[in-house]
């Protein structure tokens, strides 16, 4: 949306098939007062508590504005914890103060256990096949859940008898069906990382990166403010951005125009030392620039020489044995020569 507003739509967006399935799955998981969800949670994280029954509470969390909803959520958490039974909070609103201003977060669900433990529930529509799932997607879900755990911990700190579980419940479709299944994910690592990020990061855009999608800061942010925020981002483009950010194609174009070697991948930089541009590296490799005593320059020249020598020797080899090469080519089927449509 931001990219479209700035005049260059990136190839992002969600297929309505995926969107519909995601919504339908979440609705199915939460149907009947969350009976299925609570059953899954009890099976995996129930501990010594009694099994949840139809009397599990599902408090109404509606209120005006994110601030009101966050207050309503905190109240519901307090009441449910005091009541000492099972409670399912559907789409609660949590506040987390970052860099001095509150950010509002909306987990899929939080369950209050009879013993006062709170568990974050994440419902995703990617499948768990034979009890395993796409590790990148699970990792993203774990980082997201860790932020919710951190935010919940601030509420729990002022709630009598409450404790936030560092194990979250990830609910996904099972195998190739629409039946839900669940897995417990320990998010202590992600929580520690996020906690440190929040104390270290001071730039709003970095913080935004660390927080889950859908986090709102200030809904009344003006377009001018938005643009200045975007342009203030330093050029830290790397190809990974393409999968994560709708502005990445902008950044890539700029990065390519500058001839930055990172456009070829972060790992490329590893052996290039202080050389940062394509032209600079090639000039150093060709012996036109750079101090030969610099290990980077020396290694580049050696790499260039070895590469050139190998290509030459291969060309010479093929020139020597044209029959051999032809014989190999002759093995290809006739249609291989057919014109490309």
């Amino acid at each position, binding site marked *: 949306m931001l990219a479209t507003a700035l005049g260059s739509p990136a*190839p992002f*967006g*969600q*297929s*309505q*098939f*995926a*969107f519909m*399935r*995601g919504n339908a*799955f979440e609705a*199915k998981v939460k149907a009947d007062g969350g009976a299925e969800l609570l059953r899954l949670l009890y099976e995996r994280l129930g501990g010594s508590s009694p099994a949840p029954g139809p009397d599990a509470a599902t408090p109404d969390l509606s209120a005006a504005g994110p601030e009101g909803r966050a207050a309503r959520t905190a109240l519901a958490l307090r009441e449910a914890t005091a009541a000492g039974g099972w409670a399912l909070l559907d789409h609660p609103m949590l506040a987390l103060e970052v860099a001095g201003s509150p950010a509002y977060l909306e987990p899929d669900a939080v369950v209050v256990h009879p013993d006062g433990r709170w568990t974050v529930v994440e419902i995703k529509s*990617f499948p768990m*096949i*034979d009890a395993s799932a796409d590790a990148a997607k699970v990792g993203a879900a774990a980082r997201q859940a860790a932020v919710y755990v951190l935010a919940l911990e601030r509420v729990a700190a002022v709630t009598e008898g409450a404790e936030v579980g560092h194990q979250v419940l990830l609910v996904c*479709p099972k*195998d*190739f*069906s*629409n*039946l839900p299944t669940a897995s417990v994910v320990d998010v202590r690592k992600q929580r520690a990382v996020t906690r440190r990020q929040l104390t270290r990061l001071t730039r709003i855009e970095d913080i935004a990166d660390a927080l889950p999608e859908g986090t709102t800061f200030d809904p009344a942010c003006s377009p001018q403010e938005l643009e200045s925020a975007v342009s203030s981002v330093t050029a830290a483009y790397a*190809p990974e951005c*393409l*999968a994560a950010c709708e502005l990445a194609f902008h950044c890539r174009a700029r990065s*390519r125009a500058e001839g930055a*070697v990172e*456009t*070829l*991948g972060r790992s*490329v930089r*590893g*052996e290039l030392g202080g050389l940062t541009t*394509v*032209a600079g*590296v*090639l000039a150093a*490799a060709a012996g036109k620039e750079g101090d030969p005593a610099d290990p980077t320059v020396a*290694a*580049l020249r*050696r*790499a*260039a020489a*070895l*590469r050139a*020598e*190998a*290509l030459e020797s*291969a060309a010479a080899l093929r020139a020597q044995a044209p029959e*051999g090469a032809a014989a*190999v*080519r002759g*093995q*290809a*089927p006739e*249609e*291989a*020569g*057919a014109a*490309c*449509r």
Partner: protein
Amino acid sequence: MSLITTLARLEAVDSGRAQPLATVRHRHLTDRPLVIVPLTTAGEAGAPLGALVGTDREAPRLLAVAQPRDRDLRFAFLAELAEAVLPHIEAYADVVEPAERNETDPATGKKTKVEVELCTDAPQLIVPSRAGIEFVRLLGRSMRFRRTAEDDPETPYPAPARVPLLGRWLTHYGERARVPGSSLLLAATDLLNRHWATGQSSLEDQHLGALLAWIDPPGGASGAEAALAAELGRDQHGQLLCPPAGPATDPAFDNRLLAPAIETYDRARQALAAAEDGLAADGRLGELSTAEREIRSLLAKVMLPTWDKVWQGLDLLRELPEGSRAEDRWTRDRWSFTAHRDRVSSGEPPQPRRDDAVTAAQKLASRETAQAQLEAQEALDDPLVLAGRRLAGEAFLADVTDVEMAYTESKRPSPRPLVTLRTDERPHLGERTKVYRSLDGKPQTAEFVRYAQEPDQEGEVLLVLRIMDRMGRGKEPAPGSLPEPGERIAWTLFEHDQRGGPKLPDPEETPWTHGGPPGADAATRAEHPDPVTPEDLL
């Protein structure tokens, strides 16, 4: 990424064309590969949308699912896929040659040679991208536990007859694709990326269209421009000019074209079901087939560019001569194919959902061996790959300056000649480091002895090696078994062949540390089909 590869990428940026990463083709290509271009439905794990399949680039077979969330239509698709793929596989199963295999007699523990059959060639499957390989695996997993009406007349929602068998074959191919250097199932992007470096990142190289744009840009355009056009170019309806190579579709295609077409199809189906008389039904049937044709044509339109690109990629690859050791790896692929053929014909159950402890360990060990072997073979086949190993200090080229005879100090002295070499390279040689050279295609071993001269002004050193083997049984080295002065020889610090690991216990002997033998229940559980629900769509 090695610095040589990095340089190739930078040169590609500079020149606007992909640069070679190999001087020979490191993967075997058969005369008649079967190309499969699959598409899947966004957000659904087991709902294929369509596919182009075939061995004739001019005549792909179009398979399509008009409503992917309808189980019957999906089964029809899978049945058709089985019809398109299995005959191709089976055509190779009966053409065999006699071969020998080492087997251990379970009673005596002795190794004996057994006469067996080896398929003279194997069917090769090519998909556009790595995601395509993952999808082959997923299809295999979703099909192999299905029950047909013949398996079990009571089974609810029986699968069409050959679907479970296709699932087993696709599972085998998907699993074999994890073995380094294997070529039974290959992704076009992997093949191309192995042989060319583009001026973009390896992430962007997963886009078949952009990748080919760098290697073979149309009409003299620069690779960068052509790749950008392939990535982002859209027509006036917002549709990508170069659709994704699948199995995922472009959301804009889903939302603007496919979803309305499926809606029309659904409406036509409802209307047909509600038809009150034959005449109305005829008319509505016509509408239904029009709607179905529309979906087929939409899917064909987004798959055909990919189909053509896969073949274009194969053409480019065939221009490279095959590396001499690729055939050796293909022979192992033929063994793998033959072994699965035998498992199928002997009535073994489908591959279990998850490997048992011993199988997992065996697979890991054999893949590590295959990886080391692949790295060695590619370096021996290709001076450009060897250059990377030389840069890393794992190989070196040197001129022989002197050969001096020496012998072991045993009662029957054996030759251990000392060879002096001159080189400007700096391999990581330590005391008695072993090095190898290829002698008549087989490795000869030498040991590093000492430096005879420190670097001179040209940076050249003299180093002394002791030749250890391959000199025959006599007191004097067999003719031709020693390096000759003036010869330029490539030495490697890595071994050319890989020893297999130790024999692992049989699964029934799995030790207590690993959970003991997989019990009877594990064996039977593997056979259970996935549960099915009356309504399996959301």
